[in-house]
């Protein structure tokens, strides 16, 4: 599984003439003529519901492949990679945060945070070199995200509040220092105060490791805190039926 991933590539992400449709003959759910994201950039992607945010993140994460155009992540042309290699690239280099229910209910908080290490030797090693062991790294990350309380860590994940769950999810996404963090509406279940605190913690962590952050949300009030905001309907020509 040798992928010539260029972890120093800049721009980290480069999209060109991108189109994605679920089935041939149907309308494209996403069109992007051109998008480049530089290392360490914090990018806000907004779109109305069903506007292709999740599709874009899926393409960047390599879970789906574009129908047309190119998706280049860390120097890799994703559309040319096999599914297994895209999975490998995601496992090694990308963290992902969902809108809700990020945690595997049958795993402990620590096990949830160390989960990427189960699928990526690179992230396991990087976590270990940083703090000694994946578990120690998990505790360090949790502490950074205001989840250092031992009693909290030992609780079943289903008993955590939504805000706490989202922060555990961020800790997991940051586990083993990936290059890219993708977040799909991570704050939509949080109230305003929590949302601000959450973003602050997230930005701090990103800055510390020069992480590239792409956060998709329909909540435009967040946009001001990012380096750049992209509204998908702006770049994508109106989804024309083919």
């Amino acid at each position, binding site marked *: 599984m040798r992928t010539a991933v260029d972890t120093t590539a800049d721009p980290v992400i480069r999209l060109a003439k991108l189109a994605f449709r679920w089935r041939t003959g149907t309308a494209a759910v996403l069109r992007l003529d051109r998008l480049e994201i530089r290392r360490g950039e914090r990018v806000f992607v907004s779109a109305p519901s069903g506007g292709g945010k999740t599709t874009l993140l899926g393409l960047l994460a390599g*879970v789906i492949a574009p129908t047309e155009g190119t998706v280049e992540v860390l120097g890799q042309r994703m559309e040319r990679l096999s599914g297994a290699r895209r999975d*490998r690239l995601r496992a090694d280099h990308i963290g992902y945060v*969902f809108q809700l*229910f*990020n945690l595997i209910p049958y795993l402990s908080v620590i*096990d949830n945070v160390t989960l*990427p290490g189960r*699928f*990526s030797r690179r992230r396991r090693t990087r976590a270990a070199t940083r703090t000694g062991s994946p578990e120690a790294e998990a505790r360090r990350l949790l502490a950074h995200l205001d989840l250092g309380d031992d009693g909290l860590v030992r609780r079943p994940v289903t008993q955590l509040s939504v805000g706490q769950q989202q922060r555990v999810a961020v800790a997991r996404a940051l586990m083993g220092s990936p290059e890219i963090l993708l977040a799909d509406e991570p704050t939509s279940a949080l109230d305003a105060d929590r949302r601000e605190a959450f973003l602050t913690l997230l930005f701090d962590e990103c800055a510390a490791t020069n992480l590239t952050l792409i956060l998709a949300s329909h909540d435009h009030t967040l946009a001001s805190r990012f380096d750049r905001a992209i509204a998908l309907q702006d770049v994508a020509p109106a989804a024309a039926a083919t």
Partner: protein
Amino acid sequence: MAILSLAWKSLLNRRATLFVTLCSIALSVALLIGIERLRIETRTSFTQTVSGIDLIVGARGGSLPLLLYSVFRIGQPTNNLSWESYLDLADHPRVAWTIPLSLGDSHRGHPVLGTNQDYFTHYRYGHGRPLAFAAGKPFADLYDAVLGAEVARALGYGLGDEIIVAHGLGEAVFARHDDKPFRVVGILARTGTPVDQTVHVSLEAIEAIHIDWQGGAPIPGLTISAEEARAMDLTPRAITAVLVGLDSRIATFRVQRFVNEYRQEPLLAILPGVALAELWTVIGVGERALLVVAGFVVLVGLFGLLTVLLTSLNERRREMAILRSVGARPGHVFALIVGEAGLVTLLGTLLGMALLYGLLFIAQPLVAAHLGLHLAIGWPAAREAAWLALILTAGLATGLIPAYRAYRTSLADGLTMRL
């Protein structure tokens, strides 16, 4: 390995639901392996009982009934053979030894066997082991009795105790030979065969207790005391069967032929090995039927597992998306579900075997007490191991169906969170 530990944790999380499935697999495994075990153990204990006997001779009839009543005390003889025929047979040049057997009486549910000293010399069990005395010695006096180990244990008899022999078989007997009590002079060491169940007395003793029973019931007014009986001619008139040892096994067919063509009386000689083989053929049909049923019970158990796994898939789509987001390939998702199925089957199998061994430990003394057969409790035999391997494989195969579905959905869903 990472996936297996995930599978394990996932199972633990759903232990309440899976416990029922686990139990049904465990029960079905216990049933299947139990039947297999009993099948082999029955055969072993039967073959342990007849050892070194070249021929069994009795009145003309079926060969299986002869085998069963003469050696295993199962069923009842229809006819006896005359003492003269017995002497003729014992005189045959190729016959090395004989053990005459006279059956039909009982003591508190235990069969009473009339025989002679040769029984203690020549009877073999467990592939060539002679009978041994735990206490005392063979009978010498007319009213001496030698007890099998289980008789002595169950009824709490010791040397010197007096026992009354009853006419006919069964626990509740109303016609007792209570005027002629026997004294226990010997107790045999445990053999794990029907010998343990048996009360042994001399052939003359059997004659003596029936001496005033000529009409099939005690003749009123004509009672012969135990001491008077001693003075009378107690040569047996008839016996039930004879166990025969030959000087060479090559002569087996010849002596068998001598018996089967005996002109004074219709007799039957059987080779115990052949009769047992016939017995296996007869009960083999039943065994196979039982095994097939047990196999289906295992299948039902696995279908239960399939149902649980399939129904859980929908609510686990989120979990699959999370796994995919942290880098799991669809193959990992597949392995997770197969691993869960495999683990449940493995646990069910282990639990089933534990259950089976528990039951065997409970059943062992009961079987010994009621059938006189010894159930050995050992490690699973090769065939059982093969069954277990087959069940585990079937369990893994069961996992393939939901695993494939999970694989497909996780490919299609990707990072879509379906709630």
